[in-house]
């Protein structure tokens, strides 16, 4: 995994002592970091056995489950934040996952590779599926089945009744202010269910 600049941004949004659910927690780096720097409690959800082991080694509370049918284990508003970092694009039913996030968390945070990033657009113009730092897989061997652009995700938020509280497009650790959907490689959204 390359350096995860989205983690720094996420951490800046999490108040001290928050209760957090990290969907697709990988090796638990984000949760472990939030526990250390923010005193956050909660769980990581992960399906891959090697990642579950890595998460235990990182000292986080990890629950091995499939995000797409595993969130029924959580009650409404059980968490302050539900985080889905760099995982949305691998979901079979991204809309349902988003709805579940809105149900179990007061706020949701989603980060995803921006398909609208200019390098991806160039690859398409050249007649090729994009392969980049944020999308490192070949088209025939990728877990990413639902790629979207920053604008597409805005539309999905509107469709599921999510109010966007913060929206950044970042690249190389910096927030892209000019033409973000073109110049930024990673979308980072914070949202909640419309009151």
């Amino acid at each position, binding site marked *: 995994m390359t350096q995860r600049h989205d983690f720094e941004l996420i951490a800046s949004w999490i108040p001290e002592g928050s209760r957090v659910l990290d969907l697709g927690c990988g090796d638990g780096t984000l949760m472990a970091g939030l526990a250390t720097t923010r005193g956050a409690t909660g769980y990581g959800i992960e399906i891959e056995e090697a990642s579950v082991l890595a998460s235990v080694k990182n000292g986080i509370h990890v*629950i091995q489950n499939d995000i797409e049918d595993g969130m029924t*284990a959580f009650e409404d508003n059980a968490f302050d934040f539900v985080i889905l970092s760099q995982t949305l694009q691998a979901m079979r039913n991204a809309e349902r996952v988003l709805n579940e996030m809105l149900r179990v968390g007061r706020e949701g945070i989603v980060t995803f590779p921006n398909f609208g990033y200019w390098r991806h657009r160039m690859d398409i113009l050249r007649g090729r599926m994009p392969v980049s730092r944020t999308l490192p897989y070949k088209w025939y061997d990728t877990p990413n089945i639902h790629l979207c652009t920053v604008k597409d995700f805005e539309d999905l938020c509107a469709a599921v009744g999510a109010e966007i509280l913060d929206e950044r497009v970042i690249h190389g650790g910096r927030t892209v202010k000019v033409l973000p959907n073109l110049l930024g490689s990673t979308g980072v959204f914070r949202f909640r269910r419309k009151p």
Partner: protein
Amino acid sequence: MADPQPHSVGAVLAQRAGFLEPLILKAGKTLASYELVYETYGTLNAERSNAVLVCHALSGSHHVAGWYAEDPKKVGWWDNLIGPGKPIDTDRFFVIGVNNIGGCHGSTGPGSVDRATGQPYGAAFPLVTVEDWVASQARLMDRLGIGRLAAAIGGSLGGMQAMQWTLSYPDRIGHALVIAAASRLSTQNIAFNDVARQAIVSDPDFHGGNFYAHKAIPARGLKLARMLGHITYLSEDLLMEKFGRVLKRDEYGFNYDVEFEIESYLRYQGDKFAQVFDANTYLLMTKALDYFDPAKETGGDLARALSAAKAGFFVASFASDWRFPPERSREMVKALVASRKAVTYAEIDAPHGHDAFLLDNPHYHQLVAAYMDNVAREVGAGERRTALVLAATELAEMRGYGAGREGA
């Protein structure tokens, strides 16, 4: 003598502790006095913070790790998990194995002599529950000078005890490792247990539980109970792979003799078990399984039942276990999450069925090791002195079969 098992705790001795303070049982009866046999491995540290209790399942015992000098082949039932450098690392943890009351490996049980009568208890031995076992284990911890367990671990019925520790003594346990268990048995599971019990009690040699006086053992009933249980502890795929439809002879005999390999295997396992296990203990253990249900007192609300717990939980299930399937573990995890407990859950992809919790599986053992490493840091037991030692993989697990592993 050369070490017959690498990374073993070595030759061990069973110890015995007598308790004269009566134990009031959940059934309303009282056990006036009792003895517990136990083994310990590793060293209790100066802070007394590194104790790990291992709870056994239906047919297990206090002999958890190591071997006996007089019988080096009698290796502890969880020796692949416990020892120097192993997942439960005896270089750092003080590990205690105890035979439960009602057992037949040395602790007071139905086959013990009742001081009041001078005869074996037999049918007079009271039914004991998971809660009673935990209470008796706590007294043993008192005796050993252990105020608080770093962890309790168990599989199946043993997992139920680890869970009960967190409810009976929330301030005396740091972590519970609840493996291939359930917070209560399913209807089907109770049904299996009753068939096993009926096999035993309908054996003419059972004599209403007082077979000791008749110098008999209800071996036929116990054998059937074990055969039934054994089938349910293994997955269908594993049985198919291991035995298939292989015949002992080339052709069908058109009679009721042993023909298929699986018949031969099960009968052998059943016979062997019936020679060493006590029928009353089998009955009692299955009832303890059936009765366990912490949510019974909260109207079925497990989250509320678990709210007293302060421990961290490690819950694990095995994908092919249909006797204690992952669904039962997920129920526990859901309740633990709902009551905001620290919980880690792993669903291990193992093909062996329920018995997987006893077998060599590197991923499973690495998970336990990683979790216990965290526990060690928490209680000041330090880091591993040597790299983690994992039991050989592949079909080395097959040593579990025929070697008399304990099952549920």
